[in-house]
């Protein structure tokens, strides 16, 4: 049985513990936001990897559309689920960070809004996957919906930006010092390793389920008598 992803997962767990320790106790308070700025080390890596995991789903979708190989569909399925988990976490973290800095749990900021729309889209894809039994149909539909959703993300971002520009814009000061960059990188590495484990495990579940529901192979054709 393959174990390579467990090595990544274990390393990811250790790196995450180190990264969070550094973020909480070692890194200096942020210049503008003080200790609240420590949320940077969880929030930004999660945001970046939520996007990156959806990129993986996009690659899986394109792969399926081009090659019709089920492995690509399993990758799509795995990455969408992991991406949705990351996206939910991202929105909650954004909300937690927004309260002390902006004074509100929620604001119609372009990033927040397009992240929410992205979550809704991919939840739709998961529900679509569950609405059919046929593996080929499921794979095609999911791939098409993933590509459309993915292409739509920048358009949504732009449209929300224009929509908000008529009211007011929120600016987040990003003043980053040397030790902060180091802590940030440690946390990015942790996230990369953990995502590898998540996607790989979820891929195996998809593969196993596909094998279980595949029809038994037909017996060899008999000789025809006439």
């Amino acid at each position, binding site marked *: 049985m393959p174990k390579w992803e467990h090595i990544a997962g274990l390393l990811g767990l250790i790196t995450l513990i180190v990264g969070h320790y550094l973020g909480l106790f070692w890194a200096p308070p942020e210049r*503008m*936001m003080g*200790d*609240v700025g*420590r949320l940077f080390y969880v929030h930004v890596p*999660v945001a970046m990897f939520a996007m990156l995991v959806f990129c993986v789903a996009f690659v899986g979708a394109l792969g399926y559309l081009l090659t019709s190989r089920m492995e690509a569909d399993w990758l799509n399925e795995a990455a969408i689920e*992991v991406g949705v988990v990351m996206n939910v976490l991202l929105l909650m*973290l954004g909300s*937690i960070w927004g*309260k002390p800095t902006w004074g509100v749990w929620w604001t119609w900021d372009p990033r927040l809004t397009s992240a929410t729309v992205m979550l809704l889209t991919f939840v739709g894809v998961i529900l679509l996957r569950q609405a059919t039994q046929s593996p080929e149909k499921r794979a095609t539909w999911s791939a098409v919906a993933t590509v459309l959703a993915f292409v739509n993300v920048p358009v949504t971002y732009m449209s929300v930006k224009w929509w908000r520009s008529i009211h007011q814009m929120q600016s987040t000061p990003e003043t980053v010092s040397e030790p902060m960059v180091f802590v940030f990188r440690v946390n990015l590495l942790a996230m990369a390793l953990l995502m590898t484990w998540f996607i790989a495990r979820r891929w195996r579940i998809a593969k196993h389920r596909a094998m279980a529901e595949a029809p038994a192979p037909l017996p060899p054709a008999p000789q025809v008598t006439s």
Partner: protein
Amino acid sequence: MTPLLAQGTGMIQGGWEFVWAGYGLTWLIFGGYAISLIVRSPTGGDLS
């Protein structure tokens, strides 16, 4: 809850409860998802 806006120094003071909530939530969700992956994995709880 009062917003911890900039006071004098230009730096937001306090707010450790938000930091703990953020880091804790990350562990909670990653842990929960990891457990769900292990439970659903083809070999059951066995991770090989």
